[in-house]
C-alpha cells in the first residue's frame, strides 16, 4: 500500500508534498511498490505515462537522468528524434546534475522532450520522455533544487525494464518487437536467435502457439493484430539449418562439474525447455521419456497436419542431444525408475515435466471407459500418432463410420480433424456452450468446418448408450445461455424436455485432462494440491527439496508456450539452487509483476492515424484435399509477405524503471 508523495500518471497530477505523509491515502493498486525485494521499497517509479515518487529522499533529476540513459541505449537509432534527442537529453540532464545551469537549459530540455514525444517513429521514442516532460511541467522546482548534486549524492539504485504489451502477455516474455524488427531488416538469423534465447522449439511454437501476444497486439486497434506467430514460423523455417549445425557442446562457456547432473522427466515442451536452458548453463542433463518418441503433448497430442513430427518437432528436440544431453526413451517414472533411484544415481536436481495425460470423464449415466467405441481425446490422438509412425500396425481401436467428439477445445478439434484423416466418414463435435465460448482457436474451428466437420453447440451429453459392451449412441440435451457469472462468462442451462438421441459407434471424450498421479509414490515426498496437480512454489520448487516441476503437471492442461516458459523458469531455479542452495530475486520478473499490476495504467490507445495494411493471409491446402491426408495444412509465407507483415509492427516498446533504496 504505497503513498504517492508527488507525481503525474496518465496526465493526473498528484502533489502531497505539503501534507503530513501519514495522512496521505494509501493506494492498494500500488502495493507492489512497498517492496521491490524484501526490505527494499520502491522510492520512485517512472514509466510511459509519467512518474510517481513515494519517498522524499528521491533525487528526481538523477532518476530522470538514468531513465534517459536507458532510452538512449535502447533507441534503435533509425529515427532522428529518438536517436539523437535521447542522447542530447541524457547529456543535458548530466550537465544539470553537475551544476551547469545556464538560463534556458531546462526549457531546452522540455522542448527536446516534447519534440521527441511528438515526432518519434515508434512507441519507444513516443513515450521515453513522458516522465521528464511531466516533471518539468508540474514539478520544475524539484529539478532545480537538484542541480549540481550528482557528484555529492552519487547514483541512486535503479532498475529498468523495457517491455511491450505483447511481451507482457507472452508467458515466456519473448522480445517480440525485436524479432519482428529483425525480420523487417532482413536479419533472419538474429530474429531466430532472439527466439532461441527463450526456447529451442521455435518452429514448433510458430505453428501451434495460442498467441497470447496477438491478443494483446495494439495493431488490432488500427486494423488487425500483427501475424506474430506466422513470422515466427517464417524465420524458424527459413533458418532451419539452425537445428543442424548451430548447436554444439562447445558453445557452452562454462561447463559445470560432472557430478552436478540434473534429471529431466518428460520430453514435452516443459522438459525440453528446462533441459535446454540447463545444458546452456553447463549442467550435464539426462532426459527420461516414457514413450519411444519425444515431444510429450506436442508430439502425441498435436496432429501431424499441424506440426510435422520428423521435420520440425523431432529436429528441434534433437538440439538437446546436440548440446550434449541424453534422452532415454521408454523410461516411465513410477514403473522403470523412481525419484529415489534418480537420487541414488547421483542426480543433484530433478525437473518433473510429465504433463497431464489422463482424459477426464463426462460423469454421465452409462459412461464406462472400458466400452468399445469409447476413447478419451488424448488417447485417441496418441493412437493416431503411433499409427503414423508405424502404419503397418493395426489401429488399436476399431474406427467406426460415425464419430462424435465431445468438447470444444483444441484437443477436440485435433481429434475431429484427425478422425477425418483416418477415414471416418462422418465426424460431429458436440459442445455444451455457444460457439463464441469455445476455448479452441478460431482458426482451428474454421478449418474443421471447412473440412466438413459438423458442429453442435449448446449440446450437452447426459447419457451414454451401449449394447453388449459397445457404444451405440449418446443422449444429449439442448442448452440455453443464462446469466453472466462474475467473470463475465454466461452460464448455460439445460432446456427441459429437449433431450434427443444421436446414434454413433464411436465417442471421443475431449473435455480436459488430468495428471495421472500413479507415477508418484508417497516416499517421493512430492505433494499434489487440491486440483490434483503438483504443488510448487513461485519458483517451481516442489515440496521435495531439489525437485522442481513445470508444465501441464503443474498448470493443468495448458499451452505449449506456458510449458516452455515454466521449463525456462525451472532451469533458472535449479541453477540457483545448485549454485547458491536457494533461488534468488529476479528483478526482471519483479518488474514484470509491477507493470502488470498497474496494467490499467499502462494500457493506451493508438492516437495517431495509421495506414491500414491488412494482415498476411496464410494459404492452406484445399480442404477437399487435406481432409484425407496428414500433410501440413498451413503453407509458408514468402519473404516479401514476411517483410510486409513485419512492417506492420508498431513497436510499442515502453521503458519502466524504479528507484529503490538499495
Amino acid at each position: 500500500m504505497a503513498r504517492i508523495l508527488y507525481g503525474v500518471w496518465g496526465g493526473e497530477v498528484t502533489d502531497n508534498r505539503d501534507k503530513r505523509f501519514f495522512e496521505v491515502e494509501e493506494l492498494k493498486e500500488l502495493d507492489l511498490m512497498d517492496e521491490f525485494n524484501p526490505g527494499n521499497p520502491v522510492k520512485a517509479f517512472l514509466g510511459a505515462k509519467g512518474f510517481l515518487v513515494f519517498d522524499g529522499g528521491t533525487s528526481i533529476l538523477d532518476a530522470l537522468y538514468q531513465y534517459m540513459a536507458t532510452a538512449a541505449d535502447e533507441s534503435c537509432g533509425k529515427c532522428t528524434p529518438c536517436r539523437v534527442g535521447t542522447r542530447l537529453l541524457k547529456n543535458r540532464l548530466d550537465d544539470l546534475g553537475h551544476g551547469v545551469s545556464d538560463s534556458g537549459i531546462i526549457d531546452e530540455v522540455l522542448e527536446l522532450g516534447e519534440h521527441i514525444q511528438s515526432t518519434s517513429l515508434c512507441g519507444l521514442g513516443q513515450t521515453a520522455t513522458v516522465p521528464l516532460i511531466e516533471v518539468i511541467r508540474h514539478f520544475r522546482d524539484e529539478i532545480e533544487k537538484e542541480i549540481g548534486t550528482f557528484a555529492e549524492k552519487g547514483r541512486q539504485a535503479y532498475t529498468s525494464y523495457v517491455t511491450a504489451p505483447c511481451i507482457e502477455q507472452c508467458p515466456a516474455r519473448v522480445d517480440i518487437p525485436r524479432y519482428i524488427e529483425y525480420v523487417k531488416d532482413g536479419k533472419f538469423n538474429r530474429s531466430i536467435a532472439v527466439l532461441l534465447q527463450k526456447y529451442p522449439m521455435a518452429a514448433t511454437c510458430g505453428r501451434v502457439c495460442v498467441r497470447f501476444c496477438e491478443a494483446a497486439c495494439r495493431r488490432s486497434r488500427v486494423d488487425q493484430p500483427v501475424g506474430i506467430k506466422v513470422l515466427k514460423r517464417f524465420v524458424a523455417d527459413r533458418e532451419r539449418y539452425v537445428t543442424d549445425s548451430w548447436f554444439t557442446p562447445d558453445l557452452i562457456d562454462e561447463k559445470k562439474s560432472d557430478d552436478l547432473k540434473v534429471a529431466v522427466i518428460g520430453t514435452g515442451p516443459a522438459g525440453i525447455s528446462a533441459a535446454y536452458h540447463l545444458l546452456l548453463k553447463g549442467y550435464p542433463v539426462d532426459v527420461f521419456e516414457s514413450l519411444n518418441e519425444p515431444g510429450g503433448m506436442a508430439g502425441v497430442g498435436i496432429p501431424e497436419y499441424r506440426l510435422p513430427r520428423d521435420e520440425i518437432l523431432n529436429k528441434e528436440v534433437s538440439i538437446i542431444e546436440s548440446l550434449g544431453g541424453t534422452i532415454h526413451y521408454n523410461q516411465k517414472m513410477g514403473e522403470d525408475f523412481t525419484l529415489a533411484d534418480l537420487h541414488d544415481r547421483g542426480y543433484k536436481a530433478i525437473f518433473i515435466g510429465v504433463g497431464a495425460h489422463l482424459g477426464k470423464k463426462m460423469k454421465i449415466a452409462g459412461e464406462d471407459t472400458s466400452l468399445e467405441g469409447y476413447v478419451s481425446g488424448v488417447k485417441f490422438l496418441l493412437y493416431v500418432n503411433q499409427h503414423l509412425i508405424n502404419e503397418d500396425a493395426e489401429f488399436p481401436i476399431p474406427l467406426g463410420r460415425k464419430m462424435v467428439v465431445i468438447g470444444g477445445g483444441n484437443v477436440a478439434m485435433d481429434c475431429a480433424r484427425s478422425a477425418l484423416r483416418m477415414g471416418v466418414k462422418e465426424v460431429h463435435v458436440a459442445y455444451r456452450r455457444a460457439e463464441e465460448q469455445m476455448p479452441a482457436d478460431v482458426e482451428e474451428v474454421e478449418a474443421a468446418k471447412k473440412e466438413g466437420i459438423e458442429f453442435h453447440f449448446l449440446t450437452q451429453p447426459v447419457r451414454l448408450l451401449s449394447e453388449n459392451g459397445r457404444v451405440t449412441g449418446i443422449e444429449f440435451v439442448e442448452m440455453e445461455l443464462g446469466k453472466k457469472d462474475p467473470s463475465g462468462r454466461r452460464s448455460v442451462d439445460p432446456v427441459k424436455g429437449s433431450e434427443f438421441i444421436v446414434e454413433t459407434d464411436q465417442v471421443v471424450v475431449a473435455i480436459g485432462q488430468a495428471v495421472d498421479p500413479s507415477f508418484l509414490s508417497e516416499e517421493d515426498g512430492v505433494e499434489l494440491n487440491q486440483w490434483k496437480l503438483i504443488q510448487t512454489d513461485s519458483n517451481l520448487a516442489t515440496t521435495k527439496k531439489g525437485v522442481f516441476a513445470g508444465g501441464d503437471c503443474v498448470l493443468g492442461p495448458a499451452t505449449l508456450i506456458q510449458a516452455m516458459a515454466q521449463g525456462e523458469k525451472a532451469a533458472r531455479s535449479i541453477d540457483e539452487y545448485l549454485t547458491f542452495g536457494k533461488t534468488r530475486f529476479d528483478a526482471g520478473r519483479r518488474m514484470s509483476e509491477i507493470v502488470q499490476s498497474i496494467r490499467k495504467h499502462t494500457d493506451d490507445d493508438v492516437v495517431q492515424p495509421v495506414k491500414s495494411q491488412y494482415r498476411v493471409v496464410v494459404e492452406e491446402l484445399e480442404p477437399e484435399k487435406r481432409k484425407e491426408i496428414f500433410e501440413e495444412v498451413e503453407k509458408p509465407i514468402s519473404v516479401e509477405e514476411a517483410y510486409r507483415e513485419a512492417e506492420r509492427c508498431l513497436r510499442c516498446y515502453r521503458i519502466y524503471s524504479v528507484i529503490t533504496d538499495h
Partner: protein
Amino acid sequence: MKAIINGKEVEFRENDTILQTARRYDMFIPTLCELEEIDHTPGTCRVCLVEIIRAGDSERQIVTSCNTPLEEGMRVFTRSRKVREQQRLQVELLLADHDQDCASCVRHGNCELQDAAQFVGLRESRYHYPEFYRQRTWDDSSPSIIRNMSRCIRCGRCIAICRDVQTTDILFYDDKGLNAEIGVRDSSCLDNSDCVTCGQCTLVCPVGALAEHDDTEEVIDYLYDPDIFTVVQFAPATRVVLGEEFNMKPGTNVQGEMITAFRKLGADIVLDTNFAADVVIMEEGTELLHRIRNGEPLPLLTSCSPGWVNFVERNYPEMLPNVSSTKSPQQCFGAIAKTYLAEKMNIPAEKMRVIAIMPCTAKKEESKRPEFTVDGRPEVDVVLTTREFASLLKREGVWLPDMEKGEFDNPWMGEFTGAAEIFGSTGGVMEAAVRTVYHIVTGKELPAIELKQVRGLEGIREAELELGDEIGTVRVAVANGLKYARELIERVKRGEKQYHFIEIMACPGGCLGGGGQPKHKHNYHMYLEARQKAIYEIDKNCTRRQSHKNVLVKKMYDDYFGEPYTSERAHTLLHTSYTDKKRVIRHTIKEIWDELSVGR
C-alpha cells in the same frame, strides 16, 4: 473522401497519405528519407512534419506526412509556426550526429540534407557533436564504392534498392542508438561481402554516405606525367548522360564535346569503348554460333556487365559454363590498346596507361581483377565513373557545354558502328549481336535492322529470330536489373523456357542507369527514357550499323588477330574465365547471441 489542407479542400482515396495528396495538389512539404519513385517511405528522418486535427477532435497533433493517411474531415496545416519550428529542430537533430564537413563532401552542393536544411529555413545549427559519429564505419575496402557512415542519415534507400531492385540484399540496418548505421551482411566491409559493386545504392543515397571510390587523382597524375602515354576510352552510355552534370537536357549527346575535353586535358590518344564493343560482337557472336553448332552449354549469357558477372559468380556459380568467355568491351579495349595499338603506334606498352570513363562502379572492380592483365600489367589502369569524370572536368576548369565538337582520328581504333553504341542500353548487346550473327549465318543483312522486341525498359523481354535451315529459330531474352536477371535465370533453371542467348545487364536500363551515372536529387531513374532515346538516335544516324562492317575492326582481325573466337591470339587476349565465388556462411548460435548482446 475529403479533407482540408491549409484551408483548401482536397479529395483523396482511402490510405492516401497526407504527403501524396499534398503533392497532387502541388503543395510542397520538405522530405528527406522518402523516395517517391520507388514508393519508399520509411519514416525515419521525421522531417516531413505537418500538424493535423482529426475530425471530431479539437487537439492538434504533429505527424509525419509521408506515412500518415488522410482521413475524412481531417484538417492539415503544413506551414504553421509549430510545424516550421519542429521541422527546423528535426534537421538540427539530424545534423547533430552528421559529419558537417560539407565542403569536403562528395555531395557538396548536390545534397538532399543541405536542401532539407534550407527548405525548413535553418539559419543556425546548435548541435554538432563529432563524438556522436566518430566511431562509425568508414569503409574503402571496395575498389568501387566507399561507405562513410558518419554521413549516413539512415533513410534506408540503399537497403531498399539492394533488397528490392537488385535482390542482392547485402545491406541492412546495423547496431543501434547513435551507432546505428548501414551494415554489410556477413562481412565487416564491402570487399569481402556478396556486394556485386553495381553501385545502384550510390544513386539513391541522399547524402555523401555512399559514393564511388574516387580515382581522379590517379588520372591527373597520368595526364600530367610527360613520360606516360594516356589512352582514353569512354563508354557508349556516358556520352548521352554526362551533359546532365553540366545542366544540359537529359539525352543530350556530348560525344564531340567529350573528345575535345579530353584533348584539352592532355590525353594522348582519345578513343571510344565502342570500338571494342564491335570487337565483342565479333567474338561473342561467333562464340554463340560455335556453341549452337557444337552442342555446348546454352543459353549463352552475356558478360559485358561486371555487376552481373559478380552476381552470377556469387549466386549462380552453376551457370558459369553458360557465361560468355568474351571479355567486356572495357577489358577488350585495354587488351587491344596495350598490344595491337602499342605495336602499331610504336608506344612501349609499359608506358601506356588506359583510362576508362564508365557509367559504372563495377567497372572499377572489374579492371582490378587479377585475370585482366597483359604481361603482368593491368589492361585498364584506371576507371572513372561518369560522375568522377564530370568532377575532373570541373577541377580542371573545363565546362563541357563550352567545348567544340571534336572527332575521333585514330587510324587503328578510331571507328565504331551503331551496333556498338547501343551496347549502352539494355537490349543493345542483343540487338547488336543479332545483326552480326544473322550476317555470319546467312551472308545477308537483317531486313529490319532494328530489333524492336528487345528495346524498351521492361525487366524481361524476349524475341525469336529465324536463322535459316542450319540453325533454325533462335530464341533470345534480355533482362535488366538483377531482380529480373534472377527471375530469368530461375526460369531457365526450372527449364520453363529454352533460350539460345540471354543478355543481362545488372542495372535497370542497362549502362544508361549505371551506378556511376550522375545522381539527381529525389530522382532514381527518371531520365532513363530520354537517355535511351538518345542512344538509339546515335545508332540511327551512324552510317555503319553492324559491327562486322567496322572497317578498322576488320583490318585489325586481318592484320593481327586472325579469325574471331577461334584464333589463339583472340582467345588469349579477348577471352577470360570465371570463378565460383559463392559463400556459404554458417554461424553458430553463440556468435549470433554475442551480436545480439552487443548491438542490434
